């Protein structure tokens, strides 16, 4: 029951990675004042890799996550490239790493779209966004998806599997491989692996196009409901290709645009990130809040991930994804600030990744034997990749004895921390203000808004786990008044 000066807490969140809870604070009039996404896990990786040999780090840090370990693997490897002076990779090494990265992007996005998010879209009565989000929890899951839309469920499985096979062919294992080493890679792509992957590439292209169509059509058909849902104006940040501003998921310079798509960070070398980015600590969350230094914490926060990348990139350098990107851009003047458009953007990246994989598989450089580079030794390095969930930054210092002495990681979900809080607040204000109870569908709405960001909370705080969600209600004096809990776990707070 909503009481005077009330706070609701929601946990557990489902179908996202990691643990978190949401609190909703109502003012004396019962109107939502603010909402917060609390991350209740603890971060430790930056500490416990200190004192370890630098070449161990690309393999060690990927243990942060089982969903997109390749991102951490590559970000750390890119940093260590600079440590050994080998950042100018051989063509074979760079292309092998890119292939690995696109494989990961495909598998991660496919998992999220088909298995984690699709149940939100597909199980409404007569298909309105409202009814879809509000469908009973027992319907909105992968089991029901497989029963009612078996073709779609299979596509999701097969696309993810294909991406994982690409990762295995380049890193040695589907999860937690060792392919990237300081200065290059430890293997090229065998002819056998190449031919095996080429067998299914046409099917992947077909399914990727279909996925873009599903996301686009859903967005357009439900635009009136989706446009305001958890949406807000924001800045957007990502890497773009240095030479021409194209979407580049593996390497480039930092670019940020504002809500109107005016450039507010103009293609900054990633080694200078400390000049343009800062992180704020808030007492109620283990996750930090990064922001653009020039704009300060109040106005400098930004979104990362597929939506941000669609806004920052000048264009996409693969034909079909480029066309899809143009159509995406036509939806909104300026930047697209619609939270639910993350899904469409994500599928454009799937299409782009599959096009890139296709092109790379046909590139003879992947069978090259020149795998390693080296040069003058450095003691400090920064590296950034665009992970599936957004911009991922690794910063290290290494002493003369090869030991890591400093590590800072800004992971994509950390950058999306403030945006997710805004999304939750927006949903709470739209759907909870003035009510005297917490409707069941409100729990769904909160999850849907957070899930659009595909957050990896375990990654952001650097622990492991599944994600439960609860809602707690606090009065103005801070006393717990009411609580709603949902999820597979116990009803603990």
């Amino acid at each position, binding site marked *: 029951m909503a009481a005077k000066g009330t706070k609701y807490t929601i946990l557990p969140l489902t179908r996202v990675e990691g643990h978190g809870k949401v609190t909703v604070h109502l003012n004396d009039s019962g109107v939502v004042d603010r909402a917060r996404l609390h991350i209740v896990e603890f971060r430790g990786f930056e500490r416990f890799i200190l*004192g*370890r*040999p630098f*070449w*161990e780090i*690309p*393999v*060690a840090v990927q*243990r942060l996550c089982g969903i997109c370990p390749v991102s951490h693997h590559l970000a750390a490897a890119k940093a260590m490239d600079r440590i*050994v002076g080998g950042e100018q990779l051989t063509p074979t090494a760079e292309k092998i790493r890119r292939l690995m990265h696109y494989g990961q992007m495909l598998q991660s996005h496919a998992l999220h779209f088909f298995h984690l998010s699709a149940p939100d879209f597909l199980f409404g009565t007569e298909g309105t966004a409202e009814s879809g989000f509000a469908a009973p929890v027992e319907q909105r899951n992968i089991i029901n998806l497989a029963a009612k839309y078996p073709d779609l469920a299979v596509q999701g499985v097969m696309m993810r599997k294909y991406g994982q096979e690409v990762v295995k062919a380049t*890193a*040695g*294992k589907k999860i*937690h*491989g*060792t*392919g990237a*080493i*300081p200065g290059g890679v*430890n*293997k090229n792509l065998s002819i056998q692996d190449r031919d095996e992957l080429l067998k299914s590439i046409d099917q992947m292209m077909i399914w990727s196009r279909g996925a873009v169509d599903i996301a686009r059509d859903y967005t357009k058909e439900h635009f009136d409901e989706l446009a305001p849902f958890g949406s807000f104006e924001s800045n957007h940040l990502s890497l773009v290709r240095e030479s021409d501003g194209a979407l580049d998921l593996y390497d480039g310079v930092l670019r940020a645009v504002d809500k109107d798509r005016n450039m507010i960070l103009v293609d900054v070398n990633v080694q200078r990130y400390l000049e343009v980015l800062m992180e704020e600590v808030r007492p109620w969350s283990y996750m930090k809040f990064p922001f653009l230094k020039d704009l300060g914490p109040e106005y400098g926060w930004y979104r990362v991930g597929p939506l941000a990348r669609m806004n920052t990139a000048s264009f996409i350098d693969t034909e079909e994804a480029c066309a899809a990107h143009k159509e995406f851009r036509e939806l909104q003047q300026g930047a697209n600030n619609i939270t639910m458009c993350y899904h469409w953007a994500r599928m454009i990246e799937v299409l782009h990744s599959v096009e890139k994989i296709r092109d790379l598989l046909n590139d003879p450089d992947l069978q090259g034997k020149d795998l390693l580079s080296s040069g003058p030794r450095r003691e400090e390095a920064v590296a950034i990749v665009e992970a599936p969930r957004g911009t991922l930054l690794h910063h290290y210092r290494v002493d003369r*004895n*090869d*030991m890591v002495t400093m590590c800072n990681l800004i992971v994509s979900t950390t950058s999306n921390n403030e945006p997710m809080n805004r999304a939750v607040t927006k949903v709470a204000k739209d759907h909870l203000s003035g009510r005297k109870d917490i409707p069941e569908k409100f729990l769904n709405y909160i999850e849907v808004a957070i899930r659009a960001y595909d957050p990896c909370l375990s990654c952001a705080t650097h622990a492991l786990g599944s994600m439960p969600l609860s809602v707690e209600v606090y009065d103005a004096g801070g006393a717990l008044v009411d609580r709603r809990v949902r999820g597979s776990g116990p009803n603990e707070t």
Partner: protein
Amino acid sequence: MSRISFTIDGVTVQAIKGQSILKAADAAGIYIPRLCAYRDLVPHGSCRVCSVKVNGRIQAACVQTVIEGAVVENNTPELEEYRSNIIDMLFVEGNHFCMFCEKSGFCELQALAYRFGIAVPKYQFLYPKREIDMSHPHVYVDHNRCILCGRCVQASQSMDSKNVFQFIGRGIRKRLQVNGDSLAKTDLKVTDEAVSVCPVGALVRKRVGYETPVGLRRYDEAPIGDDIEPGKGDR
């Protein structure tokens, strides 16, 4: 050389008098698991992984010489459990993080754990606080992974004609010590045999980790012991 015969698990084995049971078994194509024993180094029976029963008594096969007519038990559930427990204890007594250890796939301790089907140690982890010596330009010592097998101590003396390593302390406080303030202050060379003989990731050449792709590492294709007795190590 006079020859004698004895049996291992009922199989008659011919051996040279004075030979260890371990060497005789190797020559006969019978694998007895071992960890501290290494090729030409003088065996000293410290790890006890090669424990066998000789006429009913448990002996370390690396130091026990063959006896005419002896009945040796090797591959029995009882001995496998003893050996498995030793491997288990070695894991929990140090800090062995195989998932990112650069010796993974080459590590004999890890390979034995796989051979014995150890997925998770049954004993409680001790999480000792140990140091890593990165001072040497080409080699480092990670005491977290040292199992005190003594191979480096002996190889440095007998193969490299140096005295880089020694043990200090007793019992649970026993640890590997370098002959100097740090590894950099010793006369260890990266080419020394002492560096090559480490069965785990304790004594490692710098900046070469992970250069061998997954799938091509020593124990990726065949389990430990397969070179002696093919086809028996898979679980």
